């Protein structure tokens, strides 16, 4: 049975806009719980996997099944969903991909990303491009692709129109991060002048050993849209829009009546007595409020999911809704409507697929669909 709530969402305005009212209604529907049987492909509903969305068919998702090393497909439909075994990704040989963190569909094949390597489809084969060989990146000591959360919840690095990859690279030695573009046809990289938030330094928790360091997942989240990039962060409400045509950056800081604007800044004077002590502090930081990736919803909206702080194993789940100019037009506490919402929220046209929190059988994936009017 559909549960419907008309939510009075408090809207605040980005400061100077005079025409907008201070209150607007968000009408949110969350469906009944649906299920898909995953047993035919061996995926588990209790694990998260690298996932990518088809550009042609929005309700089709590709999932890397690490167990069988296949890219399986998941077709989501309210009435009929199915999962299908896909092509195997060899780890060795001329088209082998030993390991990868992210992938996206491209020309009936896939592009794969590893720490500083991209595997590109090329006349039926895979071409390996090692970014560490580009003098521009070597000169800047940009050694690694900056990885966001292990949960690939929105990391989107490819401009299909221009066949260009956008990535944030980082340096081991000084935490410096730079936005980099890679033009596939020209096989050329370029640096993009993007200014990231100053607060990032305060949120980096590092455990250092000689030549090795462990960090909390503080990295920026990158999302490629048609002619612009969205860069947001897991620790703050702030985000940037980078206009690729104008080559200009615009900064946003949407306020909320429902949740705080930033994770608490960790105490950097702590002397970690052990690595496990460091992990405790890093985990506490991760349990604080977390801002998710931006997604386009239908043709006229963007949304972002904000997970409230985890306290006594409970947390709230909020949604922020933006217009195409990134003015915030509404926000709502989704957990009031349905407390069983998990951590994955993927757009399917004008609806949002949400993995359910409760997954009692690993062969069965439970999920909900959210609609916004």
């Amino acid at each position, binding site marked *: 049975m559909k549960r419907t709530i008309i939510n009075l969402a408090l809207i605040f305005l980005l400061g100077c806009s005079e025409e907008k009212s201070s209150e607007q209604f968000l009408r949110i529907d969350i469906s009944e719980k649906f299920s898909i049987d995953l047993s035919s492909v061996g995926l588990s509903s*209790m*694990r*998260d996997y690298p996932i990518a969305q088809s550009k042609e068919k929005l309700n089709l998702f590709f999932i890397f099944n690490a167990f069988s090393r296949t890219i399986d497909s998941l077709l989501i439909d309210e009435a009929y969903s199915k999962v299908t075994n896909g092509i195997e990704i060899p780890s060795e040989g001329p088209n082998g991909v*030993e*390991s*990868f*963190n992210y992938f996206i569909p491209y020309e009936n094949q896939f592009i794969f990303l*590893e*720490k*500083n390597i991209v595997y590109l489809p090329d006349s039926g084969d895979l071409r390996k491009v090692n970014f*560490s060989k580009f003098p521009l990146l070597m000169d800047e000591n940009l*050694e*690694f692709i900056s*990885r966001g*959360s*292990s*949960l690939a919840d929105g990391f989107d690095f490819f401009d299909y129109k221009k066949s260009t990859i956008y990535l944030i690279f980082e340096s*081991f*030695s000084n935490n410096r991060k730079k936005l980099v573009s890679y033009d596939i046809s020209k096989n050329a990289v370029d640096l993009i002048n993007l200014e990231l938030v100053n607060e990032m330094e305060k949120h980096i928790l590092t455990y250092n*050993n*000689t*030549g*090795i*360091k*462990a*960090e*909390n*997942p503080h*990295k920026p989240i990158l999302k490629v849209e048609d002619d612009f990039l969205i860069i947001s962060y897991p620790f703050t409400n702030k985000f940037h829009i980078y206009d690729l045509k104008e080559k200009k950056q615009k900064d946003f800081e949407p306020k909320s009546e429902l949740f705080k604007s930033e994770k608490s800044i960790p105490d950097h004077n702590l002397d970690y007595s052990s*690595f*496990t002590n460091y*992990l*405790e502090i*890093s*985990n506490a930081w*991760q*349990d604080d409020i977390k801002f998710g990736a931006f997604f386009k919803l239908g043709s006229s909206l963007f949304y972002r999911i904000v*997970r409230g702080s*985890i306290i006594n*194993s*409970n*947390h709230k*789940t909020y949604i922020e809704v933006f217009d195409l100019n990134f003015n915030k037009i509404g926000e709502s506490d989704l957990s009031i409507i349905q407390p069983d*919402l*998990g*951590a*994955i929220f993927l757009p399917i046209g004008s609806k949002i697929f949400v*993995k359910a*929190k409760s*997954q009692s059988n690993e062969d069965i994936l439970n999920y909900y669909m959210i609609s916004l009017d």
Partner: protein
Amino acid sequence: MSKKKMKKIILTLGLLALTFAAFPCEGTWIACGAQDIQDMVIDAMSNCGPGSQFVIVDLCDGNPDGQHHEVHVLFESNP
């Protein structure tokens, strides 16, 4: 020392050097609990080469939304 013996020693040393050269590690690793993560990092220090980058996800910490704690590990490329 004969030329033949010298050649053999050089080949043996070369083979040993290849055997002990650690390659960079990468990917997403699964752990269960803080102690397991620590053990993985200690193992990586022995077995992974410069330029390694990997993420360890703790599947046993049971976050209520299904998302787990993680730690990102990086090795300097040219220490």
